[in-house]
Structures are given as structure tokens and as C-alpha cells.
């Protein structure tokens, strides 16, 4: 619990802030504890994550996992990102997460994947 890497990401979050003219901008929150994550993403060719930043508040798990997630998805194809699972996030965090804090741990991934879904629906419509 509270391994060095989590405290490190929490205290010095990577990719904090907002991307300019984002293709994807999506915010989710975890009503039980008030964690919030807003992701802004710039795509390359509508397919690859060129730039990603997050803003948020909440507990160390939700914020550290957001910081870690932004690091690993950069330059990834969104098809790959859509396939990321709970297990991938837990591997990143590398500490045991109980069912209650799972919501915190997965908030960033949910935000990203739902943001992609909305983006795809929106672009398909057009």
C-alpha cells in the first residue's frame, strides 16, 4: 500500500493539464468519493494518441493511475487503448486494490475509453 511509485505519481503527476484543441475531451467522476478525472486527447490521423493530459482531483489511487495511464497510452493506437483492461491498470499500480477502491483505480481508464467511444460515435455520425 502506498508504494513509492504511487506517491511519486501523486505528488508529481505526469501529463497534468489540458491539451489545446483536443479531439477528445471527456470527464468522469466517482460519485462515492468525489474523484474526478478530465482527459483531453489530441489524435494523430484520428487513430493514434498524439498527446494526452489530465486534470483531476481525488485520492492518490485515482490521480496516480491517471498519471500512469497517460504515460503508457501515448503513441498507442486507440484500438489498442480500447482493449486495455482492469488488469493492465492493476499491473501499473502494482499494489492490491480492494473492490471499493477499484472504482478509483479504474476511473482514468473508464474516462479514456468512454471518451474514445463518444468520439467514435460522433465522427461516425458525421
Amino acid at each position, binding site marked *: 500500500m502506498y508504494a513509492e511509485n504511487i506517491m511519486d505519481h501523486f505528488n508529481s503527476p505526469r501529463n497534468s493539464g489540458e491539451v489545446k484543441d483536443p479531439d477528445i475531451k471527456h470527464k468522469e467522476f466517482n*460519485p*462515492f468519493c468525489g474523484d474526478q478525472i478530465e482527459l483531453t486527447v489530441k489524435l494523430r490521423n484520428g487513430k493514434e494518441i498524439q498527446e494526452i493530459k489530465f486534470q483531476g482531483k481525488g485520492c492518490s489511487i485515482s490521480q496516480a493511475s491517471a498519471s500512469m495511464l497517460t504515460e503508457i497510452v501515448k503513441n498507442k493506437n486507440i484500438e489498442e487503448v480500447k482493449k486495455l483492461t482492469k488488469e493492465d491498470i492493476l499491473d501499473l499500480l502494482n499494489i492490491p486494490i*480492494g*473492490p*471499493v*477502491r477499484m472504482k478509483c483505480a479504474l476511473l482514468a481508464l473508464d474516462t479514456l475509453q468512454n471518451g474514445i467511444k463518444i468520439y467514435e460515435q460522433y465522427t461516425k455520425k458525421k
Partner: protein
Amino acid sequence: MLIDEIRNDFPILKRKVNGKPLVYLDNAATSQKPKQVIDAIKNFYETQNANIHRGIHQLSEESTEAFERSREKVAKFISAKPEQIIFTKNTTESINTIAYGYGLKNIKKGDEILTTVMEHHSNFLPWQLVKKHTGATLKIADITDDGLLKMNHLEKLATKKTKLVAVTQVSNVLGTINPVKEISEIAQKNNSLFLVDGAQAAPHMPVDVKKTGCDFYAFSSHKMLGPTGIGVLYIKDPDKVDPFLVGGGTIKEVYTDKEAVWHDSPWKFEGGTPDVSGVIGFGATVDYLNKIGMEKIRKHEEEITKYALDKLLKIKNITIYGPMDHRLRGAVIAFNIGGIHPHDVAAILDSEGIAVRPGHACCKPLMSRLDILAMCRASFYIYNTKNEADVLVSGLEKVNKIFKR
């Protein structure tokens, strides 16, 4: 599993009543509990007890996990999804949840609710309440003289105005097993929602809400080897129903100056601290029932019902209600003997250690239909034996003798 092994799991079956071995035939009122269930509750309180959901500490995480695992087991037990399973305190609360949360909102003057004359008060009074508050019409399908639902009557009463059809799957007096699949088709044809009172079905036979095609299904843990204080409400489409008991746990957001944002199902329906120990005990109950197998339970009860019906029919002055074909009924046998009051019958049986239930069984409309005030009801479960049916028969012969009939 042999019946002796099963009986061995139920501590109370070792009890004597009035010096005689207990012959428990009041299962339609409530069932006995195996030690696996009693121990699950005890163990929860001794090692895990905590409030669920909003906790971060170890006990709360363990409790939450065990609680939600129970929900998954119950969902699987009736072929539903966890988010369609709401824990209440009993069948009565389950049905009221629909009456208030769906009925009062969606049923209007001019609309109709369709039910039957064999319903338990818990599946009758809620609809009278909706009728009273909305001005809707309550239509009541009749039974045949041998206690079967008059399907052509029900079909005639069902119209495009019927917003809801509410029928018991098994009658707690007649034992009649109603053709819920057929009724579901009638309901669908009219675009009516269909509520099944499964209080007497879920304990005794396999239930599949998808195959049944119902919108709501209600039953009680205490009648199926599980703890008291736990009911289940299956809702096919939880968005159709408003939160009913509102309070802690039912919301995402609360404001002082505007309406609350409700949580998702099932949480929006589970206001306040649930009966955590009961739900966990009920999870252990579902495990126990699955270990025996619902098909096997039904088969055992069919056999014992056939055996008991055959023997009981030979008793002098007896009137047995409901269909005589054991394949059409559950293991509930209601009867009267001559002009002897059911209380007297039950009291004499009690002096022989036999527990049966006298009275109206919360079915006053059915009592009126049968033109009786009360009856005696013997009801069997997986732990009852043919030998116990014999003890019942001897007890009833003694009743006749005492009353000089």
C-alpha cells in the same frame, strides 16, 4: 444426497414437541434452516461484520464482496443479471416496491390491473392500494371448481387497457401451479407488464425469469431454507421503476435546492443499511439449494405430494382443496375435516408433534370463493419424509376420534 443426510443438516429437526418428534409441515409459512446457513450468519458476525459499500477498511471490503457475491448467486439462481436483483425484506416489500415505484406513477384512471382470486394478500392489497390512489380498475380472474386458474376467464379480462398482470406462480393454499409462461404471452399481447409472485415457487422448483418472460419476480428467503428478513425483487428493466424507500445509498447527488440524482440499479432501490448478515446467509442458502438441485427438490416434493394426497383422501369427512393431480401442484395440501374448526385440528396435531397451519393463509378472497372461513394446511419440503405424511394421517384419524366423527 440422501434424505437422512439432508435432515442431519437441520438442527431443529432433532427437537421434540410435546414429547413427540417434531413433524414440521408448515413450510409454506416458513422453512427451517440448515446449519450451513446458520453458520454463515454466525461466522459473518464473528469475523467480518461491517457496513457495506462506502467503506475502505478491510472488514467493509470483505462484507461488500460477500454481499455482492450473494447478489450474483441469487441472480444466477433465477437466470437474471445482478443489477436486476434488489434485496428487500420480504416478498411483500418486493411487491409494494412495484406498486409504489411503478404503479402509482404509471397507472392512471381508466387503466386496468389484472390479478386472480387465489392471490395472497401481499399480491392483492398493493393493487387495491394502486386502484384506490389512481382510480384504475382491478379485475380478478376466477378459478375452476378443482382449483385451477380459469385461463379463458383471465384471457377475456386482459385488454389493451391492462397495464399490469399480477399472478402467483404457485398458490399457497390450493398448491396450484399456474401457467406463467402462457400468462406472460397474454400480457405481452396487450403490452401489459407481468409480475409473478414467486414466494411459493422459487423455493420448490427451478425458476428462469427469462423463460417465464416476466417483468417482475418476487420471493422470500425465509421460505426457501434461508434467513428471515430477506426478500428478492427481480426487475427486468430497472429504469422503469422509481426509487421507493429513499435514503442512504440510493443517490449519486443530493442538493438542498433541487432534486437528487438517483444511483443506478440495484442501489437506487436499496435505501438504508441492508440486512447484510441476512443477504450473506441467503447466499449460503442458494449454494445449499444448488447442491441438492432444484429439479431434485421438485421431484421429491411431487412424490411426497402424490403419496400424501392418496392417503389423505381416504380420511373420513376430509375435503381437500386444489387440483388432485400432483403434477399440477406444489407440495401444499389444504383441507378441512367435517365441521371441525381448523384450530382444533391443528391443536390436536400439535399435541402429536405435527406442525400445520390453520386459518385463512392470508387469502381471504380465496376463502370467500371457496366459501369457507379457514382451512388447515400441511406443506412439505425437501427434508420431509413419507413417514411424516403417515404421521399426519394418523393425527387426523385421531382428530376424527376425539370429535366423535
